[in-house]
C-alpha cells in the first residue's frame, strides 16, 4: 500500500510540474520565468470553453483563443504571437479553431514577480496534427494591412493605426490630455 501511495503521489507531482521544453525549437526572448514549451493541444475559444457560449468559427477573430493541452488538460491562455510588434495570437490561432495541433513557443510569468503562479503562452509556430505543415505565428501585420488599407505611410502598424492615433490626439500619449503631455515632453526630451 505504501509503495502504491508513493507511486501515485510521484505521478501527481510530476503531472503538476511537467517539463514541456523537450523538442522545442522556440527562440528565447529573455522573458520573466521563461520556459520553452512544445506540446500538443486543441485550439479553443476561451469564452466558449468557460461559459458554453459557442459561436461558429471561434468567434471569427473577435474572441480570445486558447489551448487545451493534451498532456494535462490544462487551459493555456495565449497572450502573444511570434512578432515583436505588440500583437496577439488570435489571427494565428483562428485557422486552427477546434483542431488538434502542435505548438512551439514560450511559457512566461514568474510568481515572485506578479504574484500569480500560472504561466501564459507566447506561440511561435503551429501545425495541425497529425502531419500538417508548420506555420509561423506572424500573421498579424498582414491581417492589419488588409483591415486598414488606407492607413498608409511610414513606420510600423501601431504608429499608423487610426484608432490609436485618434485616442492619442484626444488624450495624449499619457492618457491625461494634451496639457499633461506637453509638460512631460518638455522634460522628457
Amino acid at each position, binding site marked *: 500500500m505504501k509503495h502504491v501511495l508513493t507511486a*501515485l503521489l510521484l505521478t501527481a507531482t510530476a503531472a503538476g510540474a511537467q517539463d514541456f521544453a523537450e523538442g522545442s525549437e522556440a527562440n528565447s526572448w529573455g522573458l520573466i520565468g521563461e520556459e520553452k514549451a512544445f506540446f500538443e493541444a486543441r485550439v479553443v475559444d476561451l469564452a466558449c470553453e468557460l461559459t458554453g457560449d459557442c459561436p461558429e468559427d471561434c468567434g471569427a477573430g473577435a474572441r480570445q483563443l486558447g489551448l487545451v493541452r493534451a498532456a494535462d488538460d490544462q*487551459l493555456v491562455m495565449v497572450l502573444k504571437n511570434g512578432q515583436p510588434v505588440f500583437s*496577439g495570437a488570435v489571427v494565428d490561432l483562428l485557422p486552427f479553431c477546434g483542431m488538434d495541433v502542435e505548438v512551439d513557443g514560450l511559457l*512566461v510569468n514568474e510568481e515572485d514577480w506578479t504574484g500569480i503562479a500560472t504561466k*501564459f503562452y507566447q506561440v511561435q509556430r503551429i501545425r495541425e496534427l497529425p502531419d500538417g505543415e508548420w506555420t509561423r505565428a506572424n500573421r*498579424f501585420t498582414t491581417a492589419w494591412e488588409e483591415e486598414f488599407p488606407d492607413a498608409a505611410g511610414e513606420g510600423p502598424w501601431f504608429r499608423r493605426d487610426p484608432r490609436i492615433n485618434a485616442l492619442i490626439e484626444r488624450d495624449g500619449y499619457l492618457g491625461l490630455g494634451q496639457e499633461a503631455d506637453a509638460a512631460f515632453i518638455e522634460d522628457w526630451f
Partner: protein
Amino acid sequence: MKSTSSAILLLAALSAPLRAETTPERIQVEGEFIDTWCYFSGVMGAPEAVQGSAHHTCALWCAAGGIPVGLLTEEGEVYMILKLEGEGVLADMDTLLELQSDRLVADGLHYRRDGIDYLVVETVVDNSGLTNENHDEWGVIPGFVIPEPAE
C-alpha cells in the same frame, strides 16, 4: 483492494486543484484595465511600470494588436477579460481601447480555471478614468512611445 481504492481516491483528491473550476460566480471587482502581455512577461520591466500613464500608449497598442486585456486589482489579482458589457467581440474593439488604463468597477461573471481568473463584464458600474499617474516615477514605457519632437 480496499487500500488500492483508497489510494485512487487520494490521488483524485490531490489532483482536484489541477482541474478546472468553471462554475461562474457573480462578482463586483475594482481595478485598472491593463495590457497583460507586458505585465506577465516582464518584457518592458517591472509590473508597476507597465500600467497607468507610464504605459498608456503601449497598452493601446497591445489591445489594438489583440493582446488580452486584464483587470488588475489593488490586491494584485488579474481578471482576464472575456467579454465586455454584452458585446460579442473583444479581440479588436473600440470600446476596449476607450477603457484601457482606466480604473473601473466591473460587475459580471467570474470563472476560474487552472489558476487563471476570467471575467465576463456585464456592467461597468463606475469608471474613474486614468487615475494611476505613474509617469513621474517611470517615464514612458517603452521609451520610444513618444516620437522625438522635430527640430
